[in-house]
């Protein structure tokens, strides 16, 4: 194949014929057009009139140009031109190394990257090269295998939510050095990182090194901060060219607990800027429900930032026992608490009985000794369900008999009478300082300043349980803070006052940090590494490279400082971490992160992922030539005046009519379709993939026919539904084929879908990939399905149980094949308390059509018929295949029956009783 100007030619020598075009020009100029015969009675007068000029009228230049273009198009078309020709290097035969960055930035163009790798593997297969794949974020010793074997393991290649660490790079370099590959292809994610130059230096000696780098925009979100009532978000991008607007979505849960987009904001990049900031102001109720921010349209761990409880403002009720002392502001028992909590918590004040119904997170009782019976009961109940009662001692408690002989239910320990006073004017000794916190204490790791001194305290009675309940103590071993758990809640007692009368503790920063550790307050700024020293955090949910959350399972815990400071890696996945009551989010990007484009030295060929398939242009050019010749015919006729003859006029009218019918139908035909649905019609969701949509509509047509012939359901012509614009309420069932690149529905479309599902509609999801991955995220379709269904109101699912009504709504079926024959089809889980019906092989299940059916058997493919009624796509082989198609049709019949009749068949359990009543 010869390549000229980016277009390859299969028969380039034919192009020599183009040289003949000037000759054609001369010939066409010389030959006069054919004469026209005309009847004309005045010819008698013409006799004897000779032409002055012997040269006839010449063909106009534009007509000649038209003809020459037509001939040129034929010549070029015959030369077999191909756009995007395959330019395979013929002489590489040694082992081929495919290097992937494998970072989160690659998740953005992951599918195209995979296609690029597949193309490389296909080339290697045809060249007979063994291939090995090296992922820099997860390097393993290289094993060169035949390309076909490698391509089978491609689905396992997933981007990791971290950048290659030093260890990774060292391992990768040694692997590359050992491999001694003959050619290498580096799929770069487009981001610079430390150590990349080392890899490049190692790869450079390889004779045939190519770099493929995606051209997509890479964006990242740094952790959100909460300042002055607004959530500040800063967006990073790698490419600084152009003006760009980025939409940021605040994801969270709606009041009913479903995932939803709670708010959006737009950040604006100016030309040359790498960072853009925006702010969101949300009411605190809404803010507390936000779980993550993400950049719209970018599915990558770096483009998503998780939110911990930093935005949650806890409700703290402050109640003190001494209300009467007006004017003594600094002596108020609540003054320091107010100061400490006000920035980070919503404070409630009022009587205890008024506050309790508000169900605050924390109730602080400062020197309150006596509680009424109702108050005690109310408090106990509240603590039992997870409330936290924080008590401070004081003169009243010291003077009262509370928890003296018997432990008060709302006190962690028994108290001695009177308390003690040290280091005062009337006592011996020095004021006591606070001992370092023990390892089991929630305060472990906090530094105790030397100037925190305690001069008075209430004393705990020695008890067997006392040692367990102390979480902070003084130098002499007397308890300073004690705690006990009641049900899901806890009671904490500070043995000093909340003001500065008994100690200097409330003055110190330690006081605020202790409150923080007790989760009384939550710090608005992300914690410093030092704050977390000594704590161990266990992951709750972690993110993969796509930014998809999953349960952490049994992943090991992380040290507090590491959680903040260390880079993300296999041992520190981004996600939500918890320690005790506190929750901290770890994100891929740190607040001061910068995204830099990868730069390549001269001499290395960098190109985009070459996925454009070669496209032959021959047919196109020949068609063009035909059109040109047709134009030439019309133009010649017009020139010779015959175009508007009697016969020609009719022809033109016919042609015009033909053109009109060839025109695409008007754009509002869709709505017209929907207006037409006054009767039952099946419908499918438009995916945007033309092929899939065609098969879906043909499949529904086939199913409609089947229903029409076999049952009393007589559906109309099926309809294609656009989620964004069309009303869904008319359709009992929607078929939704999943393609990896269909857009995620808008917020409004989700609202419509959820309303549809709640009002009894059913959606049949079809991943069309035979469930090879069991709905894991390994297949692109499965991942897309998860992505789409995440925001939908779908309850728990289970594989179709053997007694599900789908198995007997019309036909008796036990599996549900389409073009693929996989058993895995999921429906809404049946209630747990369903009982075996007496004398029947199924349980007593009533009511409720499953809102979704999820499978991957490509049912539409099996149902699809051509306009002439024959099957559109092959199913299986021979008779077995036809049997499978028949079963697929039966499944469709059962499905529609199930939607339309509900659990009518399930009511068969009552048949014996009914027969009995009829006296049969």
């Amino acid at each position, binding site marked *: 194949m010869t390549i000229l100007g980016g277009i390859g030619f299969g028969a380039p020598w034919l192009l020599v014929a183009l040289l003949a075009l000037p000759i054609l020009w001369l010939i066409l100029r010389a030959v*006069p*057009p*054919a*004469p*026209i*015969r*005309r*009847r*004309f*009675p*005045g*010819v*008698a*007068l*013409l*006799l004897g*009139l000779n*032409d*002055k*000029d*012997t*040269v*006839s*009228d010449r063909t106009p230049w534009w007509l000649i140009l038209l003809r020459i273009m037509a001939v040129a198009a034929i010549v070029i078309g015959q030369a077999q031109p191909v756009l995007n020709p395959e330019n395979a290097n013929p002489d590489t035969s040694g082992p081929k190394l495919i290097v992937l960055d494998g970072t989160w930035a690659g998740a953005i163009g992951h599918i195209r990257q995979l296609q690029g790798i597949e193309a490389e593997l296909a080339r290697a297969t045809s060249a007979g090269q063994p291939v090995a794949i090296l992922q820099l974020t997860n390097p393993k010793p290289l094993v060169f295998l035949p390309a076909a074997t490698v391509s089978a393991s491609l689905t396992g290649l997933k981007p990791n939510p971290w950048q290659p660490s030093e260890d990774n790079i060292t391992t990768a370099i040694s692997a590359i050095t050992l491999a001694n590959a003959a050619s290498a292809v580096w799929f770069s994610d487009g981001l610079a990182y430390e150590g990349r130059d080392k890899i490049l230096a190692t790869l450079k000696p390889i004779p045939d090194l190519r770099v493929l780098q995606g051209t997509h925009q890479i964006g990242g979100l740094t952790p959100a901060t909460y300042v002055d009532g607004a959530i500040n978000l800063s967006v990073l991008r790698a490419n600084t060219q152009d003006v760009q607007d980025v939409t940021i979505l605040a994801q969270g849960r709606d009041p009913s607990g479903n995932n939803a987009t709670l708010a959006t904001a737009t950040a604006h990049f100016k030309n040359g800027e790498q960072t853009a900031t925006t702010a969101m102001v949300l009411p605190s109720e809404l803010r507390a429900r936000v779980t993550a921010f993400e950049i719209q349209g970018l599915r990558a761990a770096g483009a998503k930032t998780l939110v911990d409880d930093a935005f949650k403002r806890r409700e703290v009720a402050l109640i003190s026992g001494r209300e009467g002392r007006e004017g003594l502001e600094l002596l108020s028992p609540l003054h320091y608490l107010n100061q400490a909590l006000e920035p980070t918590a919503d404070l409630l004040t009022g009587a205890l009985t008024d506050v309790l119904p508000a169900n605050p997170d924390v109730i602080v009782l400062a020197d309150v000794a006596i509680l009424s019976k109702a108050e005690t009961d109310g408090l106990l109940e509240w603590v039992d369900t997870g409330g936290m009662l924080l008590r401070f001692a004081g003169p009243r408690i010291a003077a009262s008999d509370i928890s003296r002989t018997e432990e008060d239910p709302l006190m962690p320990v028994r108290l001695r009478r009177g308390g003690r006073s040290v280091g005062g004017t009337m006592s011996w000794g020095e004021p006591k300082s606070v001992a370092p916190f023990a390892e089991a204490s929630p305060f472990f790791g906090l530094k105790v300043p030397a100037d925190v001194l305690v001069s008075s305290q209430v004393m705990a009675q020695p008890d067997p349980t006392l040692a367990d309940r102390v979480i902070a103590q003084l130098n002499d071993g007397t308890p300073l803070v004690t705690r006990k758990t009641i049900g899901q809640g806890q009671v904490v007692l500070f043995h000093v006052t909340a003001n500065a009368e008994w100690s200097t503790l409330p003055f110190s920063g330690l006081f605020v940090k202790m409150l923080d550790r007790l989760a009384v307050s939550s710090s608005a700024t992300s914690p410093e590494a030092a704050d977390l020293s000594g704590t161990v955090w266990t992951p709750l949910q972690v993110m993969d490279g796509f930014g998809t959350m999953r349960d952490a399972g049994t992943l090991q815990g992380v040290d507090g400082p590491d959680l903040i400071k260390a880079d993300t890696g296999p041992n520190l996945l981004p996600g939500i971490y918890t320690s005790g009551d506190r929750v901290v989010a770890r994100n891929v990007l740190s607040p001061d992160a910068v995204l830099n484009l990868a730069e390549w030295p001269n001499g290395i060929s960098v190109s985009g992922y070459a996925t454009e398939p070669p496209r032959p242009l021959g047919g196109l050019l020949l068609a063009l030539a035909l059109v040109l010749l047709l134009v030439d015919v019309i133009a010649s006729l017009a*020139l*010779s*005046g015959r175009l508007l003859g*009697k016969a020609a006029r009719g022809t033109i009218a016919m042609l015009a009519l033909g053109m009109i019918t060839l025109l695409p139908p008007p754009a509002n035909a869709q709505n017209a379709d929907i207006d037409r649905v006054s009767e039952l019609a099946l419908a499918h969701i438009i995916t945007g993939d033309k092929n899939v949509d065609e098969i879906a509509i043909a499949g529904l047509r086939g199913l409609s026919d089947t229903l029409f012939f076999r049952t009393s359901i007589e559906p109309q012509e099926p309809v294609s539904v656009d989620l964004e614009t069309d009303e869904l309420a008319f359709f009992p069932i929607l078929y939704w084929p999943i393609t990896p690149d269909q857009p995620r529905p808008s917020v409004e479309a989700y609202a419509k879908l959820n309303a549809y599902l709640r009002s009894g509609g059913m959606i049949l999801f079809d991943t069309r990939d035979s469930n090879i991955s069991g709905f894991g995220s390994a297949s692109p379709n499965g991942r897309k399905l998860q992505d789409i269904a995440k925001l939908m109101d779908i309850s728990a699912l289970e594989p179709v149980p053997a007694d599900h009504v789908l198995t007997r709504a019309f036909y008796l079926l036990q599996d549900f094949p389409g073009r693929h024959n996989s058993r895995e089809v999921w429906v809404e889980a049946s209630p747990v308390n369903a009982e075996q019906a007496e004398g029947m092989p199924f349980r007593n299940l009533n009511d409720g059509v499953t809102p979704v059916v999820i499978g991957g058997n490509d049912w539409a493919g099996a149902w699809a018929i051509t306009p002439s009624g024959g099957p559109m796509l092959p199913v299986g082989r021979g008779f077995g295949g036809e049997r499978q198609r028949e079963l697929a049709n039966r499944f469709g019949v059962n499905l529609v029956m199930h939607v339309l009749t509900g659990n009518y068949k399930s009511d068969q359990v009552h048949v014996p009783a009914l027969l009995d009543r009829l006296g049969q």
Partner: protein
Amino acid sequence: MNSPVTSATLRARSEGHAARLPPLLARAEQLAGAVLLGDHGRRRSGMGDDFWQYRPAQVGDSRRMIDHRRSAMGDQQFVREREWQIAQSVMLWCDQGASMRFTSNDDLPTKIDRARVLTLSLAILLNRAGERVGLTGTRLPPRRGNAQITQLAEMLSEDQETEYSPPEHRAMIPNAAAMFASDFLGDIAPVKLALTKAADRGVRGVLLQILDPSEEAFPFHGRTIFESVGGMVRHETLKANDLRDRYLTRLAERKADLQRLCTRTGWQYGLHHTEKSAQTGLLWLYQAMNGGARI
């Protein structure tokens, strides 16, 4: 419009056109004793059927001429005189050659169609006015009556094979009136011969040239072979638009020739285009045939 011309339809359409005009009194400038009696009162005494006047008998009046019924009323003898009445003979010639069977546009009638309608309309008008109409030549001598009109219509409906048929000039009745309708695009010599012959016999009349609009405009371009309608004559040109001016000059010359010929012989020359209505043509004919009478 191009429905097959049968004598019946031709007559019906001609009567339609003729109905819109008052009876035409053909001009009879010269009356000779040879002309037969007709309905034309000559406003003088002579031979005729209608009473004109009683006059006293004079010397030389034959006794048989005395009207005794009037004379018996007194002593004087009277002679009864009658008005002198004659009928004019009008001879029509309509070109039925192939060149007349032409139209440039489906919406226009062929020239022959228009010529036939005009000729027959005129014949009907004349007949209604009491004149005798016939064709030139010997096939249909002038007569009166509806039967004559029927025969006229039949004969006019015939087509001739000749390309450009010359006017028939034989058997011209002296002092009669005549009307020639044709496109006069063929050789002009027979026309000249016919007119001079007619003038010799004292026949006066009207020459109506009927042309198609394309013959006036010559809207042709490019390499063209022009063929006569019968296909006998052809002329090829490489640039038709170049011929236009010279063709128009020749056409103007032809018209001028005809005009001159008419002036010399005392005839009237008229030009009619098929895109105009037949009514205008008939109106002009009416005035031309009536104009000399100056009644």
